[in-house]
């Protein structure tokens, strides 16, 4: 079964350093990633080789429990994690990529949110996969907007 890749990009009107600070926190995904209901276990700032766990919404009221392992960190540009717990999808990889850009004369971030996975269940799985991709894209866009709102709402670092 070939790998599926779903990737979305958004330009956020907040600096890369702040975006990195939030995505680096393994306890904060429920605050901005659509579908993460709660982080059930975490290790604070992401560390290669360590894990964090979530409870995720799947379909309707159904939920699943997932565990992610931090595989690679290239601060403040790229982060790669692998996840389990999303059957029938396997070999799940999540990639966050950040690039500094100018937004209205201020610091901004081009954020690329990518997930790769291998759908299970043969032809049925491929059909389900095709059906779910538009929803995944929407949720990635919504997550990135959530992240932007969160950072705007928290205000500049000096107000902390």
């Amino acid at each position, binding site marked *: 079964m070939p790998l599926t890749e779903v990737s979305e990009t958004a330009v956020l009107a907040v600096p890369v350093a702040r975006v990195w600070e939030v995505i680096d926190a393994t306890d*904060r995904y429920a*605050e901005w990633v659509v579908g993460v209901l709660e982080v059930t276990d975490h290790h604070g700032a992401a560390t290669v080789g360590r894990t964090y766990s979530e409870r995720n919404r799947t379909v309707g009221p159904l939920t699943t429990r997932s565990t992610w392992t931090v595989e690679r960190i290239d601060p403040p540009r790229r982060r790669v994690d692998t996840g389990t717990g999303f059957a029938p999808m396997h070999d799940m990889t999540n990639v966050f990529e950040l690039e500094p850009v100018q937004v209205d004369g201020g610091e901004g971030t081009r954020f690329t949110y990518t997930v790769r996975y291998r759908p299970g269940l043969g032809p049925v799985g491929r059909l389900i996969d095709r059906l779910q991709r538009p929803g995944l894209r929407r949720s990635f866009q919504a997550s990135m907007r*959530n992240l932007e*709102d*969160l*950072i*705007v*709402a*928290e*205000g500049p*670092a000096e*107000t*902390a």
Partner: protein
Amino acid sequence: MSVSRAADVVVVGAGLAGLTAADALVTAGRDVVVLEARDRVGGRLVNHDLGDGLVAEAGGQFVGPTQNQVLGLAAELGVATFPTYAAGDSVYVHGGRARRFGGDIPPDPLALPGLGLAMARMNRLARTIPLEEPWTARHARRWDGTTFATWLRRVTAGTGGLDLVDVFLGSAYGATAAEASLLFSLHYIAGMGDEHTPGTIDRGIAVAGGAQELRFHGGSQLLAVRLARRLDGRVVLGAPVRAVEQDGRSVTVRSDAGAWTARHVVLAVPPVLAARVSWSPRLPPQQEALFGRLAFGALAKCEAVYDEPFWRADGLNGQGVFRAGSTVCSMFDNSPPGDGPGVLMGFLGGRQWRAWAGRPARHRRGAVLRAFAQVAGRRALRPREYFEQDWTAEPWTLGGPTAAAAPGVLTALGPWRDRPFGRVHFAGAEHADYWNGYMDGAVRSGRDTARAVLAAAD
């Protein structure tokens, strides 16, 4: 050994109850001193300065129909009221989705029928509660042996009814229905009225025609400030009371500002703090146990200030109801009257307080403002000022807004709530039967206690 000053009555606590009691006693010709631990008066009433003479309330703030005691006091003190802003739609947030609605009841078709029936039933049961002695109600033991949440689960289908009651209790108790007994809750509801009007939960939750209908020009703390001014130098600030010693003839109160000896003492402080005073002789164990169990709820108010109340132009009244899972439980337009800045205020109460109080301030600010944005739009993300008042962090309050009794407390220890201990009388919003925990309850309790002191005076 320090010299003790003398007064007829020492009032401990310059909150609304203590000041009201002191005012009544002075009016009756008694020599009174009020000892206040803080460097300000008002207790749970505190104004936040917005500049240009404007304020937003960071503590108790709303009044409404049947709260005649506090409304009468305000009129007497020249503090006018104005209506809480309610023109336009409110917003109901559930499962991350926001929906506009009119009136006080959010549009939740799955939860509403059951909740409506449950509210009618609450009102009917509340009418059977003897307000001054709820522990003598016919089903007192059964009702005090169960939580409000257990009862709500039994009389409603699904979790919607309970979730929506918890929205209200988040700001009313600073706790959830799972933490309060059914008997206490029915008594609380029964008190949402006056001698002529039976209390109802509807009056408790409503803005127009309910407990959130009005606010005070100049902020609610102005009541305390004006009462203190009328007491003309009788209020001593920065005087936390450490010990109360009494014998058959007098009471000595020892504070950081010195000792006073009086014929009577009115202790108008939160029950938990009353239990922590060093007593000689000791408080009766039942009273000590009760006061220890009447801990306040957990409540913080989070407020954001904008150049103008921009949401009003969108037909919104700034009110939000957040079902379980949100950062705040409810929010209001807390702008001062006139053309000044816009203020949004959200309650972080009970469950929400527990989820967020320990988080870094910046994270909490971000979460609160995103909740505000769900109701008022994305402009709410960028206030010109943001402030919080966490009442649990106030050492002379230890939470808020009131003390909801857990199962078993009222029937076992309730009769000790207002019972004087020798020459010491107890006052406070938690000692009121009508509008328990509200400003009206504080004023009632202050006046009732002053009457009791005058009746007992020798």
